[in-house]
């Protein structure tokens, strides 16, 4: 140390005001301040205003209940962030059960050192996503872990909502002959996140498709369309969803590749990286298995909503081997569609 560096002043600990500290999870004043300044103002509602250990809900009739945890890198990406993902993901999982999300819980696991601005942005996104989907965040929890023990921020959401559909929706309702309808183009979320994480300089910015799909799903049910099964296409993409449903329902599924919409920039990115768009993740897309007689009507209804304006029929359920998903390619030859066998890894050349 040189004389010039010496000072009698005692400096305040650096970073304390603008990043998450371990004390923010300690259960004391620092934690209360974090909740009072960032979390509660964003989610302000009568349930949270009671400052109690849990929410008391008045439920009647059948209720769907689901939970999901969100880990994504980077936390913010074109078209959304981990907050929009965490709300829409759970809202969409409930929609796939034929239910309209009503109440959500939120668990936040914060890494020491997370910029508070990032936390502010994420909770604000959660609030606006919740408002857009008509769901209330009724209870929550916040924990802080040491630096290096989490990728900035992990989120868990759980959701409850009344089941709107009178008929059961699920793989066991799928029948040979059902039409398979896809709600729009695939692959945008996976490519958007990968491009943001790896810093690819694509000519165009590919935005995530992250969005709630509850409105078009409710419209199908309310119009009396015979919806047999719904599945949102998240990790593993369309391929995993089709194989899972085929296996659970004990049916085969024949898809037509030419009918599956993939945006040109997403297709180009997949070509470069050696990925199959059928395996790439989505956050605002779903497949609906509906009775053949209702197929055209279902597509017309879906196309009235912006989030599913690109709905198309992509295939038909068959009576072949359980879980056998085939896809008719450009040259008219069928190929097998399987789940990914591990992580998606870009190829060498």
């Amino acid at each position: 140390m040189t004389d010039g560096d010496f000072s009698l002043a005692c400096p305040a600990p650096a970073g304390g005001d603008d990043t998450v500290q371990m004390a923010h999870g300690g259960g004391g004043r620092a934690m209360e301040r974090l909740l009072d300044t960032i979390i509660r103002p964003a989610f302000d509602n009568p349930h949270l205003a009671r400052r109690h250990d849990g929410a008391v809900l008045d439920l009647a009739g059948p209720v769907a209940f689901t939970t999901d945890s969100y880990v994504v890198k980077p936390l913010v990406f074109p078209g959304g962030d981990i907050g929009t993902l965490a709300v829409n993901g759970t809202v969409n999982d409930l929609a796939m059960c034929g239910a309209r999300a009503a109440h959500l819980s939120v668990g936040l696991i914060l890494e020491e050192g997370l910029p508070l601005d990032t936390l502010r942005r994420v909770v604000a996104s959660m609030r606006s996503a919740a408002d857009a989907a008509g769901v209330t965040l009724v209870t929550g929890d916040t924990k802080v872990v040491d630096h290096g023990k989490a990728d900035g921020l992990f989120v868990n959401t759980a959701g409850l909502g009344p089941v709107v559909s009178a008929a059961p929706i699920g793989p066991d309702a799928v029948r040979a002959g059902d039409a398979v309808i896809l709600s729009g183009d695939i692959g945008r979320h996976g490519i958007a996140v990968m491009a943001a994480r790896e810093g690819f300089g694509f000519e165009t910015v590919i935005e995530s498709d992250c969005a709630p799909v509850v409105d078009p799903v409710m419209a199908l049910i309310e119009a009396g369309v015979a919806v047999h099964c719904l599945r949102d296409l998240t990790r593993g993409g369309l391929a995993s969803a089709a194989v899972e449903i085929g296996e659970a329902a004990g049916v085969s599924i024949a898809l037509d590749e030419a009918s599956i919409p993939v945006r040109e920039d997403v297709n180009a990115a997949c070509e470069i990286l050696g990925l199959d768009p059928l395996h790439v993740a989505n956050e605002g897309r779903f497949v609906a298995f509906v009775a053949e007689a209702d197929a055209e009507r279902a597509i017309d209804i879906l196309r009235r909503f912006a989030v599913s304006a690109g709905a198309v029929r992509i295939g038909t359920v068959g009576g072949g081997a359980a879980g056998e998903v085939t896809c008719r390619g450009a040259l008219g030859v069928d190929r097998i569609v399987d789940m990914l066998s591990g992580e998606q890894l870009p190829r060498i050349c």
Partner: protein
Amino acid sequence: MKFRDEYRDPVAARGYADAIARITTRPWTLMEVCGGQTHAIVRYGIDELLPDGVTLVHGPGCPVCVTPAEYIDKAIEIVARPETILCSFGDMLRVAGTGGDLLAAKSRGGDVRVVYSPLDALTIARANPDREVVFFAVGFETTAPANAMAAYQAKREGLTNVSLLVSHVLVPPAMRTILDGPTNRIQGFLAAGHVCTVMGFEEYYPIAAQYHVPIVVTGFEPLDILEGVYMTIRQLEEGRAEVENQYSRSVTRAGNRTAQTIIGEVFRVTPRRWRGIGDIAESGLGLSDAYAGFDAERRFGPVSSGAEAKTECISGLVLRGEKKPPECPAFGTHCTPERPLGVTMVSSEGACAAYYRYRGRKSASLEAAS
């Protein structure tokens, strides 16, 4: 998509298939060299459009598959050291050496990073001056220019904390080895279009002449491959053995001189062991004397040349084109992408993975029935 869907047009494909059927008078066995072509063939079912008796066998052009196990062992050994960061292309991570793969090394705390360009390794080295950054440089002539560029750039910048673990291979010597094999059945080659984009196709003339075998430089889209098959069979039927270029929209006879210059500066031709095939003279690239300082083997010790473990896996025969994946008794039963016995089932460009992925477990019985 502009200039992609045009090469996947079903009517044009049918036209080529018909043309091939018209000129084919007897059985022919062709090899497509590149794993990318293998995947296109299996994915689009191009082989199913060909007349009976025309057989496409799959070549050794899967860079991950032919990288010797001992290099993967070395990479794992390097990344176990706390001061190192190992950068690799993604599909190298799942391939096992003699003891585990790089994904497992990563889960044990090794700092393994997937990069999309070798130059990313330099960015990581600049950002981590107190760490040793090692780039796992594998592949054919296609990836050699970019890998060479990383070494060239590192030298120019004076980066001292970056090195390359090099296991590069060259296509023409492997084609000769296949043709020299006592059980060789290859009568014509679809040469790898992207390799030729870099290297041109001058070096194929002596092979075509010596072995009297047609070689057609071929692209990767379905129509490219069908046209390549057509051109090869036309030569065979006419008794010709020439070098022709189907992929002229990308390949010139001389190739990319700039790329060849950087390869020539950074690398030198060396003997190389190919996984599943064995030692081939003058079939690899190692760092030249001027770049020896960037050789990871100098910094972390040489790769030991251990013998490959014996398994029932026939990936060596698959890589030489002597067997097709469904002919293996383990295919789809106790060898699957989740539990692979051999590299050709692991890599996204491996022939076994292509059959399994696009035709499923049942391709074994389908193949037997046909």
